[in-house]
């Protein structure tokens, strides 16, 4: 396992290098340049700008310099936003994008896992039909439609929520309350059971529950304290939650009919225990493999959602930088997105090993 992770980590820079090289070539062969505009600057001015940014050298030399800087963590200047370099632009943009992506992920998981599980357990019930209809809607309607519709309803018609604005006010109070309650519950349980009967497996299960509760609490606190985050995170979470719900339902349906679940039922375990302890672990696998690229996706930002709600994230930077030929900014986003994607895929593969005992890393 350790060797497997190590091997993947060694390959990572190579994957990124190939990614950067291809992107470098692509952006450089695109017609136009960072200094062209409708009001064309004089050849002297263009020559000066090229010299200032080192674009007067041979492209191979420029590539060498860029890789040299990259190794030292320097992503280069931005031609468009002259007061900040690419490192600064990405550093200020990743925060809002990560907050929004994190919120959307938590919302999507909370809603999607619950709806999918109930849908599978109560297959063909009214709840199943209703939730799957909503999920189909959520998956098929693009967020450039849902976003403005939500704005129209909640901001313009009822005036409950703001359209734009980004803040991250937070309160630790609900957080601490949950931790306190949880600790009290565990201690009460231990006292009841007596020292000899505390089992590790149960405690790990409880810790998972605590983590889920804390994540949800953090998300809800953030949403209550910053109403401007509600519409963008819901817009971003909707297709995400829908996909998770469908995957979860399908995964669970496959698992609940398998022998080991039947065995669990036959042992006379309560239905909740069967579902949560036995079926869930297997049923969640399709969701986990989907989560890797999906979380990397929301964490690198959504052009559409960031535009509709004016979130100061990095989702917009990539497209806008590509259009204005802001070479180093494009490459910076590529490096960041690439690293996130490779990283999350690795996490997913490792998580698989824990969830599915059949998978071994050699």
């Amino acid at each position, binding site marked *: 396992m350790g060797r497997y992770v190590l091997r993947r980590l060694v390959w990572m820079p190579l994957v990124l290098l190939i990614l950067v090289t291809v992107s470098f070539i692509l952006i450089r062969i*695109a*017609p*136009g*340049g960072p*200094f*062209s*505009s*409708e*009001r*064309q*600057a*004089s*050849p*002297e*001015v263009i*020559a*000066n*700008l090229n*010299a*200032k*940014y*080192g674009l*007067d*050298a041979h492209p191979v030399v420029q590539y060498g*310099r860029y890789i040299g800087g990259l190794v030292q963590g320097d992503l280069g*200047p931005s031609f*468009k*936003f*002259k*007061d*900040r370099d690419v490192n600064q*632009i990405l550093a*200020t*943009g990743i925060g809002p994008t990560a907050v929004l992506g994190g919120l959307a992920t938590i919302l999507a998981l909370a809603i999607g896992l619950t709806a999918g599980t109930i849908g599978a357990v109560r297959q063909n019930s009214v709840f199943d039909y209703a939730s799957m209809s909503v999920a189909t809607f959520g998956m098929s309607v693009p967020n450039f439609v849902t976003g*403005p519709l939500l*704005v129209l309803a909640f*901001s*313009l018609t009822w*005036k409950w929520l*703001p*359209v*734009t*604005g*980004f803040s991250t006010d937070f309160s630790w109070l609900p957080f601490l309350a949950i931790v306190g309650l949880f600790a009290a519950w565990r201690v009460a349980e231990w006292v009841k059971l007596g020292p000899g009967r505390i089992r590790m497996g149960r405690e790990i299960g409880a810790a998972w529950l605590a983590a889920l509760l804390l994540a949800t609490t953090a998300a809800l606190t953030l949403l209550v304290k910053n109403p401007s985050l509600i519409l963008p995170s819901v817009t971003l979470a909707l297709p995400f939650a829908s996909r998770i719900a469908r995957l979860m339902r399908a995964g669970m349906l496959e698992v609940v009919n398998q022998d080991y679940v039947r065995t669990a039922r036959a042992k006379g375990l309560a239905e909740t225990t069967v579902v949560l302890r036995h079926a869930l672990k297997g049923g969640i696998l399709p969701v986990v493999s989907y989560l890797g690229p999906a979380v990397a996706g929301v964490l690198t930002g959504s052009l559409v959602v960031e*535009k*509709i*709600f*004016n979130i*100061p*994230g990095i989702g*917009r930077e990539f497209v806008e930088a590509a*259009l204005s*030929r802001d070479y180093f900014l494009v490459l910076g986003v590529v490096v960041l997105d690439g690293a996130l994607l490779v990283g999350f895929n690795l996490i997913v593969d490792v998580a698989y090993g824990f969830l599915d005992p059949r998978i071994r890393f050699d």
Partner: protein
Amino acid sequence: MRPIVTALLLAALAAPLLAGSGDFPTEGEDLKQIDWTKLYPSGDGWKKTEQVFVWNNEAEPETLDPALMTGTTEHNLALCLFEGLTTHHPATLQPLPGAAEWWEIGGGGLVYTFHLRKDGKWSNGDPVTAEDFRWSWQRALTPSTGSKYAEMFFPIKGAQRFFEWHPAEPAFPARGDEPAVAAKPAYDDGPRPSWKDVGVEVVDPLTLRVTLRAPTAYFLELAAFETLMPVHRATVEKHGDKWTSARTLVGNGPFALDVWKPRDRIEMVPNPSWWNRKMIRLARVVVRAIDDQNTSLSEYLSGGVDWIRSIPARRIDEAQVHPDYYVSPYLGSYFFRFNITRKPFDDVRVRKAFTMAIDKKDICERVLKAGQIPASGVVALGIHGYPELKGLTYEPVKARALLAEAGFPEGKGLPEVEVLYNTQESHKAVCESMVDMWKTNLGVKVQLKNCEWQVYLKDTHEMQYQVARAGWIGDYADPNTFLDMWVTDRGNNNTGWSSKKYDALIEQAAMEPDHAKRFAIFQEAERMVCVEDLPILPLYYYVNQGMLRPRVKGWFENVRDLHPLQYVCLDGPPGSGK
């Protein structure tokens, strides 16, 4: 055009003409006596309102360094944070004293002597001196600073030579390289110029003397331009490229930078050291950077901002019925270039036929709908004292005859024609209706070719087109900004058109000190471009449109969409957007 919009526009055009006449002196010591209260809204209502002005600036500024700025987004911020030698009258744009308290013009309009304020201070308390201006101008003119608008200095004697003789040092000099030595500009036989050869002289700490190359009638307006604004030397030298951060920026404008959250907002508070601080009524200015026009309009309608500077094209009908909607002429014109080096547009009769077959009024009313003004010239409206060119009109019959005369009756035998434009919905709509008109009126079939912005720019500059869409925004309110680009081989000519007579006219206008004569020369030049030789097809003049809450006072529409906020105050509760 809707009658109401027409009326609004005519009123807006007339207002500056009325207000501009003789209210304020234009030079001399009288400038010291200006009664600034005249520019402020009267009444005390504002004292009961929280003075936080929130508006949307349409985009994230590319820089806050005035020497590097190029757009209106940045210019409106520069007006808050910095102050040039002169400033603008908020409605008429007439140059008024800024960092300079008064000035003298001598030497036949060639020598400007600016007398700076004794109480002029930077936001950190340092005095604003003539040396600050000299250093800032030298910095902007030094090629390695990377100013795209360095040519704004070229009316100053020696500035262009200085700039072109001093190329930027490469960012990564190879080991052992000699320091960059200028490749001598081809036209130039003189010795290598030094800064001493540039007509900027510090007479004493508060007096700056500027000598021009030619009497440039709009120089006082240029002196308010962002490229010519001063920067604080110690700050720039200490922090380098990063001196504009909220923590470090030092300015001499009415407001000081407080918060800069990129892509979200910039917040400014009154600059306590500014010479006229007591007149500023706003307590805080919040500048949003919402670049999506739909989001911007939603934000306005939900009550989040007091002013937005644009309306999405698809929602014009909806916006026009809103009481807060405003529209006014803008210093920009929209036209099409003909590539006159290629058939069939090497023949002026074909160019004329294609121009006269277009019903511009119809395009403005039916396609654009925001009150854009059909153009027969290229100089945008709203330049004080410059009359609108009455050029070619819509005459389909005559157009057809001209095309026949050129040897293409009913379009027969005409080579395939293609119109180039950059991918955007409104351009597409305009181009499609033009194709339609050419087909109906001339019987010719024209193809459309849309390209991504950069490809479109490249094809235009390399003249890989037959007819190409174009737009031009004036840098200052003078015809020169629209006309000098058609001089032979200018970087933005891009049509292949060249006329010795035209070149001579533009040079003559540059040397002419008399205002009326100068404008007459320009009108003759404009007639050559838009009536006689037609390297371009003028289509319409731009408009500004947006939404402004009635509680915002001291804010004026003007042709450059520039809004000095020191005159603004709020009177009334925040709008609900109803």
